[in-house]
């Protein structure tokens, strides 16, 4: 199976979605008339798009159905029982929340953690294809896939701060703070790294998340560090 390059994919997409000008459409259709492989790609892409739209329709139908149930439920003799059930559910929920609520360090982490969105992934970055492929996985939330791909690159370049930083971020996103902390803090201490400031902040948060508060309190933040104030706020919450 040969790959379909991005310009060709987007040309087919524009044709299927009716976004070509009249001249472009005519030229495309002339090519279609003689190119069986292109016709096959158009049919496939049209059906894939239709499948995605059908998925969207099913989502909307599910919502409408739920709304109908709510509307039908707004009248009727059993509504009084529903009120009691709601009160019981609220009480039960509150008790359950109290029992299972996160501890203080988990709450502090949740209050302040916003995942690094990653680097822009440009299609033209063919020279770093493996790195950007992992970045796409990272942006899609496939942290384990991203870690596997970046780790393979890190074996070739063990001192690369970008790789260690993003593997640390992916570990933190995957809720493995104990693995994330040493990676991130090693980048934080690396002279000249563009990721040093963020790595110190995320490394500090990883320590908080994993409950190692003694080490977290010992992470040094210079007065002018961009995350010094936030780190102080986290420590204050932990007190």
């Amino acid at each position, binding site marked *: *199976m*040969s*790959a*379909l390059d*991005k310009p060709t*994919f*987007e040309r087919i997409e524009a044709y299927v979605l009716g976004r070509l000008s009249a001249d472009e459409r005519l030229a495309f259709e002339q090519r279609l008339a003689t190119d*069986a*492989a292109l016709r*096959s790609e158009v*049919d*496939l*892409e049209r*059906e*894939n*798009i*239709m*499948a*995605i*739209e*059908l*998925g*969207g*329709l*099913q*989502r*909307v*139908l599910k*919502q*409408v*159905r739920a*709304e*109908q149930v709510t509307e*039908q439920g707004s009248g009727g003799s059993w509504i009084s029982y529903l009120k009691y059930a709601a009160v019981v559910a609220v009480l039960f929920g509150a008790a359950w929340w109290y029992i299972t609520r996160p501890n203080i360090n988990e709450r502090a982490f949740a209050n302040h953690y916003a995942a690094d*969105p*990653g680097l*822009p*992934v*440009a*299609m033209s970055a063919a020279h770093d294809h493996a790195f950007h492929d992992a970045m*796409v996985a990272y*942006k*899609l*939330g*496939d942290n384990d896939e991203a870690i596997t791909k970046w780790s393979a690159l890190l074996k070739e370049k063990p001192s690369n701060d970008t790789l260690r930083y993003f593997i640390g971020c992916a570990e933190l996103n995957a809720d493995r703070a104990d693995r994330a902390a040493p990676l991130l803090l090693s980048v934080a201490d690396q002279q000249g790294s563009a990721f040093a400031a963020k790595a110190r902040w995320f490394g500090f948060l990883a320590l908080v998340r994993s409950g190692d508060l003694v080490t977290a309190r010992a992470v040094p933040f210079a007065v002018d560090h961009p995350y010094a104030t936030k780190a102080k706020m986290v420590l204050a919450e932990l007190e």
Partner: protein
Amino acid sequence: MLEGGPDRPSFPGICTNTTDLRIIVLRFTLPVQAKADIAAPPAWVSGLQRNDPKTVRTLYKEHFAAVKHYVLKNSGTTSDAEDVFQEALTVLWLKVREGAIQDASEPGAFLFRVAKYKWLDVVRSAAHKHMRVLHDDRQPDVRADVPDDTEEKLARLRDVYARLDDKCREVLDQFYFERKDLGAIAAGMGVEEESIRTIKYRCMMKLRASRKTIAGDEYTDEA
């Protein structure tokens, strides 16, 4: 017949020959508004063509009651009625998207007919053999509304959609179903527009690869 006669008006001083008369007569007999009315599809058709949730909601509200009444009378529940009605709405959507329905002004009859046959299929299935159908008046040839390949196509499309992971669905749904532009999707997800463009391309390529791998005989690369 366009030539002037004893029963049609004449325009002395304006028309000098038959060609002029033809132009004037056409202007008087086909007002612009009338032409627009003929060309424009009904609102519900254009709504389904652009995946408008309000149109879906309106169709549901206006036509579900009749289906529910029928299903409840034939041993079904409200939930059964919702199932077959949703399926009928899905068939209607597919027909509109394929251009098979363009100028029908009343979708209720179509929805009822499809939902009814779908429910009768359920009733006649092994699990419902004990039920008694009160209103089975269908004719052998009326199922032309739902040709066999429609159900096959819907099953195939659902299978394709099932292969997408949640993240791909999130991006592709916004772009292809909601028709948002890349910039709006990127702003909503807190990433760059170029990243969304790349993610969309890669998700579609994953889908293409999985389909070509599974149905290699159906789609062959000739390039």
